């Protein structure tokens, strides 16, 4: 044992982010004082990022099961959902917020790399990516630098890796000035029965490290992600990893090839906490131990300390345990792809209790001896129940009454229309998405047919042929969540499901990325608890279990406080029959436009109220779960019965923006009428939920009316599709060319 240096103290532990109680617990587990290497091991494995210590108790309350669930949350690197025909979809979302705040390009790039490794380490070939981004006030040069860097990072990595980025969402609010959010989503396809596991067993089986060499980048990255951002954070730049998408592409192909041999016992990618995380999680799961010779790990620089090798978050690496005797076959595949492949140890026996130990050697000396089980989530890692308290502002927000703001007059409409269509939260994201390869793989069915969610054919090298498509989306309006975390999180789930339904898909399952501030602040923790409760209830009602995801706390700075609570929902849907595809674009002049769902006298938390009327304090928009379910059921039936030509859900910017988006996508105009029973601003710009805009051709109209009269959902004919111009109550609000130009170019002009 390494005893040359004095043993670390509680004070050292504190510097590594280990609490005094936790230090005592480590001493109890080991039966002695830990050395520095061991303390480092515990500090990263028990960091929030790896152990979910402050969230796991609440995460366990989320619904996690359905008939289609092949791997439940936490069992594997990503959720696994049966999509029929012997295929499964593996999908997950993960944050890279803290690295992106300091180094947006590499932070975002490695976020993309990490989430894709989670997918292909299961043997699934990634087929589509999404991302969910939050930035601060776009008028600040710093925000534009972050947006530029993150976009380029996602693009450069994803484009070279060769998996299309098919959708996403971006919001801007000053609460994200210091802490941007970068959440990356990936979905892949694997044949059921060929899924690789993150496990390790079989005494004497060799343990390999494959892919990139190990460097000093990202050391204590997991600990870093578990702290508030401060001025001192830039001192932690080495905690940001550097990505190499070329290496990732080679690693993808080589990994799928070795898994296909059938000789892989277990495999896990190395992301947060590097080698120590993979060795401990795989060993704990397989109830075995490992002996690892750190001298055999290919490194980028000489003389790396044991803790540096163990904790390094160098990208594009995997830990693989294979059947003894098959070393040559695996080596051959990695040679073919010109990748490192080094045997660094072997699997060892565990005592009868299954608690295997990890022994790490450096220069022939045992430098760490730790029990795998005690390091990991679900094992010995601590779990905390934090105090929480409703923040005072919530009651203030609830006091908002609509009559405190004036309604818009017909003369105002043009001004509001221009404001909303060019607002960074609503305008076209083409400046961003055109920097992403959205078409590689020839599977993206949304390129030439826009819809609320992305439709991606289940297709790729090695994937058996099928007609099915996955339908995927990421959603979260964090302003709603901030106003009411329970309802706001429900709305995030509802909107994701609505987007999938409006596209012709069937919602199946959810992955979540829970972005919050410091969990030790009771008001922040209340956001978290309420959001998880709301999300859980909504996921249960939509029969979309949560298959896994990621918690990112500490999105908070000393200057700006916490970000809006942002529980991003990534939802997976399935389209069995390609004929059920529905798009959002208006088709022909003369088609009738209908609103499905009820208007409300509600402008709460709308973009209109927030940025046009500049009223920041209001509750979440009106939401009724029963109404939502009823509307979605009707829209599904309208699509399968072929009674509508387009469907687009009403979200940011309200009914007017939804109709305008359908018109722009179809190169058409519209003429609609408001309803005298509602305030004009609420009718046109309110963001009350559970509403969908559909268009109906003359041939469909009789059938549509007949069907809707029997449906127990309110609907109203609001106007018709025209050649050009956006007309409300007989008055031209904005010319279609002007609207399209504003909408398409607003973001590009700001970024120019």
């Amino acid at each position, binding site marked *: 044992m390494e005893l040359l240096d004095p043993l670390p103290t509680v004070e050292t532990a504190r510097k590594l982010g280990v609490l005094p109680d936790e230090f005592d617990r480590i001493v109890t587990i080991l039966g002695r004082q830990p050395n520095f290497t061991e303390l480092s091991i515990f500090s990263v494995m028990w960091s929030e990022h790896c152990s979910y210590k402050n969230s796991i108790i609440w995460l366990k309350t989320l619904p996690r099961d359905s008939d289609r669930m092949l791997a439940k949350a936490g069992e594997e690197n990503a959720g696994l959902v049966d999509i029929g025909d012997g295929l499964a979809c593996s999908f997950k979302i993960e944050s890279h917020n803290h690295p992106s705040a300091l180094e947006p390009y590499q932070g975002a790039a490695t976020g993309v790399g990490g989430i894709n490794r989670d997918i292909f380490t299961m043997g699934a070939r990634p087929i589509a990516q999404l991302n969910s981004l939050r930035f601060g006030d776009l008028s600040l040069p710093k925000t534009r630098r972050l947006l530029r860097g993150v976009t380029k990072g996602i693009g450069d990595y994803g484009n*070279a890796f*060769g998996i299309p980025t098919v959708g996403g969402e971006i919001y801007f609010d000053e609460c994200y000035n210091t802490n941007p959010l970068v959440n990356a989503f990936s979905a892949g396809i694997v044949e059921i029965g060929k899924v690789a596991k993150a496990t390790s067993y079989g005494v004497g089986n060799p343990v390999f490290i494959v892919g990139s060499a190990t460097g000093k980048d990202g050391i204590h990255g997991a600990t870093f992600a578990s702290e508030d951002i401060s001025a001192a954070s830039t001192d932690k730049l080495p905690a940001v990893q550097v990505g190499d998408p*070329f290496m990732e592409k080679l690693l993808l192909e080589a990994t799928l090839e070795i898994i296909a041999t059938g000789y892989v016992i277990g495999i896990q990618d190395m992301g947060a906490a590097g080698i120590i995380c993979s060795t401990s999680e795989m060993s704990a799961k397989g109830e075995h131990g490992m002996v690892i010779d750190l001298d055999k790990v290919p490194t980028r620089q000489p003389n790396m300390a044991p803790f540096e090798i163990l904790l390094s978050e160098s990208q594009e690496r995997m830990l693989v345990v294979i059947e003894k005797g098959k070393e040559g076959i695996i080596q051959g595949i990695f040679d073919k792809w010109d990748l490192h492949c080094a045997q660094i140890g072997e699997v060892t026996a565990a005592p009868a209790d299954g608690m295997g130990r990890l022994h790490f050697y450096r220069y022939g000396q045992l430098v760490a001896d730790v029990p795998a089980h005690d390091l990991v989530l679900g094992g010995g890692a601590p779990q905390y129940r934090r105090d929480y308290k409703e923040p005072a502002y919530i009651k203030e927000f609830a006091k908002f009454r609509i009559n405190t703001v004036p309604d818009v007059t017909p003369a105002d409409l043009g001004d509001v229309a221009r404001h909303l269509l060019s607002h960074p939260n609503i305008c076209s994201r083409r400046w961003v998405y055109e920097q*992403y*390869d959205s*078409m590689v793989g*020839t599977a993206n*069915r949304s*390129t*030439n047919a826009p819809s609320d969610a992305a439709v991606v054919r289940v297709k790729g090298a090695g994937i058996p042929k099928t007609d099915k498509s996955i339908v995927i989306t990421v959603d979260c309006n964090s302003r709603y969540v901030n106003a009411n975390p329970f309802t706001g999180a429900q709305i995030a789930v509802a909107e994701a499901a609505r987007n999938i339904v409006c596209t012709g898909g069937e919602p199946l399952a959810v992955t979540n990325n829970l972005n919050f501030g410091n969990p030790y602040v009771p008001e922040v923790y209340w956001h978290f608890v309420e959001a998880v409760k709301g999300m859980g209830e909504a996921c249960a009602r939509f029969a979309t279990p949560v298959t896994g995801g990621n918690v990112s706390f500490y999105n908070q700075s000393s200057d700006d406080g916490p970000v809006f609570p942002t529980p991003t929902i990534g939802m997976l849907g399935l389209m069995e029959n390609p004929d059920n595809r529905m798009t959002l674009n208006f088709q022909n002049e003369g088609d009738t436009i209908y609103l499905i769902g009820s208007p409300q006298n509600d402008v709460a938390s709308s973009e209109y109220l927030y940025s046009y009327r500049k009223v920041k304090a209001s509750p979440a928009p009106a939401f009724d779960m029963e109404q939502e379910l009823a509307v979605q059921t009707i829209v599904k039936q309208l699509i399968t019965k072929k009674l509508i030509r387009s469907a687009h859900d009403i979200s940011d910017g309200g009914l007017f923006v939804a109709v305008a988006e359908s018109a722009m996508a179809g190169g058409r105009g519209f003429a609609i009428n408001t309803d005298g029973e509602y305030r004009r601003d609420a009718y046109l710009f309110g963001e009350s939920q559970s509403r969908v805009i559909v268009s109906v051709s003359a041939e469909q109209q009789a059938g549509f009316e007949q069907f809707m009269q029997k449906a127990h959902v309110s609907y109203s004919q609001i106007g018709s599709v025209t050649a050009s111009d956006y007309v409300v109550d007989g008055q031209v609000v904005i010319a279609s060319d002007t609207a399209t130009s504003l909408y398409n170019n607003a973001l590009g002009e700001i970024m120019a």
Partner: protein
Amino acid sequence: MTLYTYDFSTYDYYLCPMKVGVVVFPGSNCDQDAVDAFESFDLSVVKLWHKDHDLQGCDLVVLPGGFSYGDYLRTGAVARFSPIMTEVIAHANRGGYLMGICNGFQILAEAQLVPGVLLRNTSQQYVCKNIYLKPQSTSALLTAGLDHDRAYKIPIAHGDGCYFANNEALARLNDNDQVLFRYCDEAGNSTDAANPNGSLDNIAGVCNDRRNVFGMMPHPERAADAALGNTDGRYILEQLLTAVLA
């Protein structure tokens, strides 16, 4: 429909099914898309591994899109030295058909199998979107049979697609009818606004003077499937097959 071609490699004039080979470099990521597109014409298609020295008797060799060798150093600069390029270059020198799409075009330019070079887009940004192309050459196999009054909608996806050649080379390209495509708007006008990357004279693709090596930045293989709502690329790929019959 099965298409047939003469097997030039042996100069035996018997009919044999045309065979397409798609080279896979490390970092290629449009190889499978090219395979899928050519297979949809009922052709025999094989992948050719970059470390091999055997074209497996392919009549048409395709260098696909992607980021070969990570495009580190310079796009296509490393891939041109891949082992299989010896045989690919020999194939072209024999008069065999060779097509480079996107990164494949960049490799052809680096290997000097087609004139000109591909620079960073003038926007300094990667760009992926549908653009329009107008066929130019009336003598090259790839474009002679296309409708020269039509704008074809084809996707692009590249960061280094700005075509450049010096004045002398440009004059030769034009005089010798070697420009395959120019970027244009939906109406077919080759305007500055329709030029997505700053390419010289809106040039989107060129061929060599012998007219058997074709390079283009846009991706016809990404517009070759009705399920994706755009089949303009099929017309372009089809030229390679039908024209060989003549």
